[in-house]
């Protein structure tokens, strides 16, 4: 017999103890002529689904498995209970995060579906039990017990493990009796013939003796042997990468902590393996026998819905149908023939595809939210469905907005529907609790994400392995942009902000960079999806291994793609902070003006001209999806007047439409600067709303139907075929078919060719209109609230930070520009959150965001104030027991201003209070709370007041500096207001005056940094879009590559700038400053004192914004690009 199959392979999904990439593994196995290959990552099946799918596509038989940590079988009790001389050294712990465990290894391979389910359960039981186990009692965390193993071994093949298996470790330690006992007990857990003694030739001096001893043991127990190479990297040359991962995984520097002395654990050829085991040919033959026995079929293509309760004599379809017809009556008054036809059609398709249960599951969840008044909104292509609309899942009428069902569910392609619903962030936990209760905790788990290395993490990882100290690691990774690790060298060579970066010293850091580049995209640990839930009919641990997530929830080891592949239902229960902000705005407004005076914003008619005035004036800070610098620029050009315009604005600022240059013709045609022309009359009705420009995916379907007579299902398939990567032959085939059918329908060939050319150009870039329409409902609601209740809206936005595009400081600055006073926090007036005062004309800053504030103190302040206001600092400290650091912060931001009276017959200054604070704390500590007003304020050594006119005794520079540092907000005034005189003398033009300046005039502006983004551009050049703010408004600055070369380092390292350049101000392009140079500016008051901006104004690398609420991670790049790319290039 010849040939060999690797049955013990650790991919990068062994998390820091494996460097085999899945694609590389499959390619290598095929290159070496192997018909099958196993994947046995530590403690789980993290990469199993991807491997299964890719291997089958490559015609390689995938064998799924895992190397688990199993309890000791060769001794009774714990290792620690043995006499020291008899103990074996336990291997280092392996696995990711809370699935990490230390103990003996055992390799398990899946034979069939029963084995797969058993392995999932076995792993889940081990990992989930860990939460109740006590780690210091011998380490049972994530360890498979022998009892479980015996009970769940059906369909599994066991291999005794590598040198870290108990059998192998006992042989190496020359404890033969224990090796024998362990082998016997482990074999006893499996069916006869399903347990093998694993031989690994690690090419150490001990290897040949080790193997012969194991073979002899196997012979004496009548157990078969099998050869493996415990593969950890593909080629010998990849071993250093694995060493680095292993070292960092074990939180140590090189050498790798597993004491591996060579680079032999690579994916060897069959010839090499047979030569290595030339004395044991049966061990190599066994790999082929095992591969033949492992024949797992996961039944891909089937769907597995959660169980849905339906009344007797009803079916899921009948229940869904009744609900939908009832919903139709409520949504459409009167019910129209078109809506009836549409609903009939959709219900028939849903029944035909077998998806009624899915809709019922979603309906059930949103009904719960509605019953508890939890704000939510459906989004995505689900908005294309009238069923979603009448069930109350989405809020945009698909008939009114020409949304097409086939874009959501194509009857020609049976694919799991995906309905995304955003819920009020603040109340999302209630939804989650309901899901667990309704479907049962054993049937629900969170979906995982796999976190991978980027440039920054790769550099840190490599530096750590190479033994750099913490300071050095920080210095090496600081100011690195958010790019992939493989681009580090390119970035260092070309990015101006990296010009003086220490990593540019190739002679010193060349090896570090080599390693970091190779670490690109290596999985580092398992994370938890923001809101994805896996819901199953059978217990979820029979479908997917589970483990504890860091925050104490149960998480699947599979990500969303794995779950979709298995045909399981994933529900995205995402939290949207804008919903929380809208709910809070309504609550604050109703508290001020009465419940009846404030309607529910989601049900408003979309026709209020004041709302459109606000949007088209680009006064959109805080508005959902309309606030970014790019959207403000678009609003100046688009001048939205209808709800359709809002949908268009949301859709146009996406990478696709931007890349296809749809905005310019759209704007020009809208303003009559360009004639609306379509090559075929059939396109006219479909493109009427967008002036003949194809913006929406739904329009592609309509055009294809109108011109070539395709059904909508065919048209959707056509659109999908056009958008994916296609070969020239496929394109020709699509082309030929389209033109033939168009001509058959009466079109001229030239017209058909032109339509196809336009479709080919635009199909890939169109945006899903339903998604935009669902968002537009929320956008309009936020715009309406900002228009009519600006103080409540701004307060609610700040209270729900982090969210949106701007910092809380800028949101309050914007409110101040709308005539709303910003009041500093005060212990007798502030709540934890920002509140509205003076009948909507002032916002009182809350105490929650104050540096050093804590939840206990917030509660104490709230509770004590209900008794009576605080009299002075002593009274405050006595009643709240405030910690020194928190009390100091409160004093510095003026939260205790004007309280108490000193000997001088006035309230103490902040300096006097700061001097008193430690003395008062000391006295209170001695006296407890018994002393009543025993302390007199007797300031002595305090600093001289710098502003006697202000109760704080502090001048404006000190007050503002303290606010920026301790709250991140500019409460007293905008920093640049203090430097207005200086800046005006330098010839700076303020933001509010830019609209009055002519196009192409040379200009100088100044502002503090809000954002610096560098989206990918069509040309591949790097352009920085800088959003600045002065005290009069926002400034959009474009820094092209040449200017960026001069100014990149300034942008990254400073917080405030003077920009010299050329103003662009025209109806077609909007207002922006094209920078020649960006200079640093230190803000100084007229007195000459500098204002410290830190915390209030951040510095960060240029790049996409991270951490924005309301968008999924995968949307971050897309949005970041879209937000800025509309500016002139």
């Amino acid at each position, binding site marked *: 017999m010849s040939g060999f199959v690797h049955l013990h392979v650790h991919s990068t999904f062994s998390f820091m103890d494996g460097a085999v990439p899945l694609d590389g593994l499959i390619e290598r196995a095929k290159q070496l002529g192997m018909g099958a290959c196993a994947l046995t990552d530590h403690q789980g099946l993290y990469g199993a689904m991807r491997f299964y799918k890719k291997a089958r596509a490559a015609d390689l038989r995938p064998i799924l498995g895992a190397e688990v940590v199993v309890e000791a079988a060769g001794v009774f009790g714990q290792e620690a209970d043995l006499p020291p001389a008899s103990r074996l050294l336990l291997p280092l712990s392996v696995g990711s995060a809370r699935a990490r465990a230390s103990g003996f290894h055992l390799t398990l391979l899946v034979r069939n579906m029963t084995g797969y389910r058993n392995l999932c359960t076995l792993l889940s039981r081990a990992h989930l039990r860990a939460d109740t186990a006590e780690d210091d009692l011998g380490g049972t965390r994530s360890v498979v017990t022998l009892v479980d193993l015996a009970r769940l071994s059906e369909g599994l093949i066991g291999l005794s493990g590598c040198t870290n298996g108990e059998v192998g470790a006992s042989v190496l330690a020359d404890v033969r009796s224990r090796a024998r006992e362990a082998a016997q007990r482990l074999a006893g857990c499996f069916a006869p013939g399903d347990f093998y003694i694993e031989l690994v030739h690690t*090419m*150490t*001096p*001990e*290897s*040949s*003796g080790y193997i012969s001893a194991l073979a002899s043991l196997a012979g004496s127990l009548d157990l078969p042997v099998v050869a493996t190479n415990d593969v950890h990297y593909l080629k010998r040359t990849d*071993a*250093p990468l694995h*060493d680095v991962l292993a070292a960092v995984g074990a939180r140590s520097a*090189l*050498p790798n902590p597993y004491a591996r*002395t*060579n*680079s*032999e654990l690579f994916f060897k050829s069959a010839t090499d393996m047979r*030569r290595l085991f030339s004395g044991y040919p049966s061990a190599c033959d066994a790999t082929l026998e095992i591969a033949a026995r492992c024949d797992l079929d996961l039944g891909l293509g089937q769907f597995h819905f959660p169980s849905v309760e339906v009344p007797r004599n009803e079916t899921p379809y009948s229940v869904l149908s009744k609900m939908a017809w009832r919903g139709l009556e409520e949504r459409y008054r009167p019910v129209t023939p078109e809506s009836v036809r549409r609903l009939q059609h959709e219900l028939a398709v849903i029944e035909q595809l077998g998806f009624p249960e899915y809709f019922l599951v979603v309906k059930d969840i949103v009904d719960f939210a509605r019953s508890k008044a939890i704000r939510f909104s459906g989004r995505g292509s689900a908005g294309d469905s009238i069923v979603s609309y009448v069930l109350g899942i989405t809020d945009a009428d698909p008939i009114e907005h020409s949304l097409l069902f086939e874009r959501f569910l194509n009857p020609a392609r049976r694919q799991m529907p995906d309905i995304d619903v955003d819920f009020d962030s603040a109340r999302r936990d209630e939804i989650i609790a309901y899901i667990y209760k309704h479907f049962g905790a054993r049937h629900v788990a969170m979906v995982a994400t796999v976190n991978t290395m980027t440039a920054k993490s790769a550099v840190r990882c490599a530096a750590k*392995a*190479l033994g750099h100290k913490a300071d050095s690691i920080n210095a090496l990774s600081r100011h690195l942009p958010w790019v992939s690790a493989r681009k580090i060298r390119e970035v260092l060579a070309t990015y101006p902000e990296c010009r003086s970066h220490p990593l540019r010293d190739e002679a010193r850091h060349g*090896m570090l960079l080599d390693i970091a580049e190779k670490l690109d995209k290596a999985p580092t640990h398992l994370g938890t999806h923001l809101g994805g839930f896996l819901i199953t009919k059978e217990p979820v641990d029979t479908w997917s291994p589970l483990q504890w997530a860091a925050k104490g929830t149960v998480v699947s080891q599979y990500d969303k793609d794995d779950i979709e592949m298995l045909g399981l239902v994933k529900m995205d229960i995402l939290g949207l902070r804008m919903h929380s902000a809208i709910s809070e705005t309504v609550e604050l407004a109703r508290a001020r003006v009465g419940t009846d005076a404030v309607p529910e914003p989601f049900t408003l008619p979309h026709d209020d001209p004041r709302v459109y005035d606000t949007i088209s004036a680009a006064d959109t800070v805080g508005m959902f999806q309309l606030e970014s610098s790019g959207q403000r620029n678009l609003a100046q050009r688009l001048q939205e007047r209808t709800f359709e315009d809002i949908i268009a604005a949301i859709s146009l600022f996406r990478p696709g439409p931007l890349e296809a240059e749809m905005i310019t013709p759209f704007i020009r045609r809208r303003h009559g600067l360009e004639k609306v022309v379509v090559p075929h009359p059939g396109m006219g009705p479909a493109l009427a709303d967008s002036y003949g420009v194809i913006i929406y995916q739904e329009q592609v379907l309509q055009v294809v139907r109108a011109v070539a007579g395709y059904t909508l299902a065919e048209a959707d398939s056509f659109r999908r075929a056009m958008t994916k990567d296609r070969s020239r032959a496929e394109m020709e085939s699509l082309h030929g078919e389209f033109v033939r059918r168009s001509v058959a329908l009466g079109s001229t060939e030239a017209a058909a060719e032109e339509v196809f050319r336009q479709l080919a150009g635009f199909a890939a870039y169109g945006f899903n209109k339903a998604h935009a329409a669902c968002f537009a409902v929320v956008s309009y609601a936020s715009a309406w609230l900002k228009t009519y209740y600006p103080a409540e809206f701004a307060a609610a936005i700040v209270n729900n930070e982090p969210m949106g595009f701007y910092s809380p400081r800028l949101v309050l600055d914007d409110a101040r520009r709308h005539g709303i006073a910003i009041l500093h926090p005060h212990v007798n007036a502030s709540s934890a959150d920002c509140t509205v005062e003076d009948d909507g004309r002032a916002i009182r800053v809350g105490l929650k965001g104050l540096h050093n504030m804590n939840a206990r103190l917030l509660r104490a302040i709230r509770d004590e104030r209900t008794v009576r206001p605080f009299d002075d600092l002593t009274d405050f400290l006595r009643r709240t027991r405030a910690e020194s650091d928190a009390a100091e912060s409160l004093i510095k931001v003026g939260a205790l201003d004007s309280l108490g009276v000193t000997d001088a017959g006035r309230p103490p200054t902040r300096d006097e209070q700061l001097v008193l604070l430690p003395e008062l704390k000391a006295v209170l500590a001695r006296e407890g709370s018994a002393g009543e007003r025993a302390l007199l304020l007797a300031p002595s050594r305090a600093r001289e007041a710098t502003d006697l006119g202000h109760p704080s005794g502090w001048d404006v520079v000190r007050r503002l500096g303290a606010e920026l540092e301790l709250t991140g907000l500019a409460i007293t005034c905008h920093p640049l207001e203090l430097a207005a005189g200086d800046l005006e003398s330098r010839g700076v033009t303020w933001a509010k005056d830019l609209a009055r300046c002519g196009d192409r005039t040379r200009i100088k502006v100044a502002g503090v940094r809000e954002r610096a983004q560098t989206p990918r551009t069509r040309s591949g050049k790097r352009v920085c879009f800088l959003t600045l703010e002065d005290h009069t408004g926002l400034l959009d600055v474009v820094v092209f590559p040449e200017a960026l070369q001069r100014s990149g380092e300034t942008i990254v390292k400073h917080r405030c700038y003077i920009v010299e350049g050329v103003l662009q101000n025209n109806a077609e392009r909007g207002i922006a400053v094209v920078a020649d140079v960006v200079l640093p500016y230190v803000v100084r008051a007229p007195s000459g004192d500098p204002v410290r901006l830190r915390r209030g104004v951040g510095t960060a690398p240029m790049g996409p914004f991270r951490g924005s609420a309301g968008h999924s991670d995968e949307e971050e790049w897309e949005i970041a690009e879209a937000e800025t790319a509309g500016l002139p290039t």
Partner: protein
Amino acid sequence: MGHNTAIRRFDAKKAGQPLDLFESASRVPVVLELLATPWIRRGSQIEGPRRCEVEVPVDWDADRARPCAFTWKEKRYVIDALVQQWAVDALWWDRPRARSRRCFRVIARGGVYDLAYDRIGGRWLLVGVVD
């Protein structure tokens, strides 16, 4: 008793080492007994003055992927048996001290020798002699 009988019976010439113990036809049982000797595999325990590092020319048997002969002190040593092989890779991150070797313990002319192929320098070394 009974162990190493073939070795004991062997009529060794008195010319001293290095000499070829296997000029007679009975070399096979001797090699087999040597291979079965426990100490011969304990590579890590063989230390002392006989560890050396001498560059030697080696003939490579490509079919069996092992050395078949080497020349040391102008004498050619035909390899009778491969006792064991191992590999050493260490300190790759410290280039001056980095080591990457494939080692072979062989029996040749009655002696036990450790040969190493130095992957970094691309040369063969005799790294150990066990009389």
